[in-house]
């Protein structure tokens, strides 16, 4: 793979749920160190795209290449081991395990790039809760734990699903700074978000989706001027 090649290349991704075309030929790519935003109205296919890339369900058409290798037939855990991980819109920690154990479990299978769970918890402000059961955390702490677990697998591609929802302005600023710092270290990040101000602060490029298709790709400032985006997503 050449240094200029994208780390993730998605081509003609299709996913149907019964008669509903959730993804209808979505194509895009991300380079190492890039933060790509994914926006669009509810039901446009943003989370479905993340689920398809991570292998939560099989796709009905198209291809996904990561690091030059086709990964769309691999099970989810293999994709994680290749270096792809995600956070969830609604955090889903292991409730009976402690915060530290949650991160340790996630880091268990990354033998090539070891992560330090204590340092990750420290960086995300969860160190003082390390020995508490995950279920005792509040929702924003659980979001942080979800991010910590994803980071423990040392991802080269991080998919972040509406991590800004429910965070206060200070937490949002902290999250934006964190994502920028991860990207500066070479991590590719796909950010699904409704908060345009947050997307403006973190993303290099933006994709706007509608009805399972890519409506717009480019800078966020251009998106806000695009009549198709205004009609489908931003509102006039």
């Amino acid at each position, binding site marked *: 793979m050449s240094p200029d090649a994208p780390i993730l290349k998605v081509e003609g991704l299709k996913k149907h749920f019964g008669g509903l075309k959730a993804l209808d030929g979505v194509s895009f790519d991300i380079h190492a160190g890039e933060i790509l935003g994914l926006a669009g109205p509810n039901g446009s296919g943003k989370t479905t795209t993340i689920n398809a890339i991570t292998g939560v369900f099989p796709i009905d058409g198209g291809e996904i290449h990561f690091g030059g290798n086709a990964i769309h037939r691999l099970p989810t*855990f293999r994709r994680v081991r290749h270096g792809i991980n995600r956070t969830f819109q609604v955090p*889903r920690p*292991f409730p009976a395990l402690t915060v530290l154990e949650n991160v340790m479990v996630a880091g268990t299978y990354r033998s090539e790039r070891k992560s330090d769970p204590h340092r990750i918890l420290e960086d995300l402000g969860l160190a003082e809760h390390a020995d508490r059961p995950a279920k005792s955390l509040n929702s924003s702490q659980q979001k942080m734990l979800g991010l910590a677990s994803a980071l423990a697998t040392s991802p080269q591609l991080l998919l972040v699903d509406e991590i800004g929802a429910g965070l206060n302005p200070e937490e949002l600023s902290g999250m934006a700074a964190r994502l920028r710092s991860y990207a500066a270290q070479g991590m590719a990040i796909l950010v699904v978000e409704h908060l345009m101000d947050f997307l403006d602060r973190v993303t290099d490029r933006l994709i706007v989706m509608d009805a399972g298709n890519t409506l717009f790709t480019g800078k966020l400032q251009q998106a806000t001027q695009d009549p198709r985006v205004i009609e489908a997503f931003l509102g006039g």
Partner: protein
Amino acid sequence: MSLLEYAVLAGIFYGLYFALVGVGLNLIFGVMRIINLAHGDFLILGAYGAFYVFHLFGWNPLWAIPIELVVFFGLSLPLYYLLVPRLQKSGDPEMLSFILFFGLSQVIEALAVFAFGNDQRSIPASVFGGSPVTIAGQVYPASWVVSAAVGMAGITLIYLYLYHTRIGRATRAIMTERSEAVVTGISVHRVSAVAFGIGIATAALAGIFSPFMIGAIAPSLGMGITVTSFTIIVIGSLGNPLGTVLGGLLYGEALMLMQTFLTSWAEMFPYALLILVLLVKPTGLLGKAVRSA
């Protein structure tokens, strides 16, 4: 020393043994959410293993422990990959597992009849030494003490596996949130297969001592032992392997107290206890809801 003290101590011996009887069934349910109705049949196969180790080779049945742990763990891995992944792709794996493992139970029983015959078999308790053991002034058969000690050792090893190993941590992660476990890079089937193997191997381990604790063995006894195991794990908590210790101890105490003081009611009482627990706390004494609505 009173009869009550005798019964209470005997209940502890039996309880530790019954915890071992149930823990494998509970581990498999906790990790895979499938109900292994063939659990008692694997236990009976383990008992036959001990029987033949003693009668064919003249060895102490304790030699059956390492042999059976390796053999049953090894054989259960292909069985897992043959049955469980397909089962879990179905709409209702829990219900389907009832049917599938009931079928497996019948197959094992039929093969056991074919291989071992229908006659009841036993091993003399004197293999553990002729002298009974005196504890707190009470005299107990040595086989009870050995069975309880092996039961405690088995439960301790399962605790160490679950709480002090990487694969155990992954196992607990799957038990609490299977879908999240997949996306953290855990190979759910590999970890589940190990848990399945441990569950079957502990059933066989308990089987080695069943001729001393449950009575003479026969192929037809498997389903009854499965029901007993269910009683134990439901009392403790379904899906929580370590809750099985509480279930086993309560079951053992109930059985011994009834056998001592109300002999004719002894067989019924543990099941009455099960019904009471289900009515008062349906998730078991230590349990939380394990099924999603």
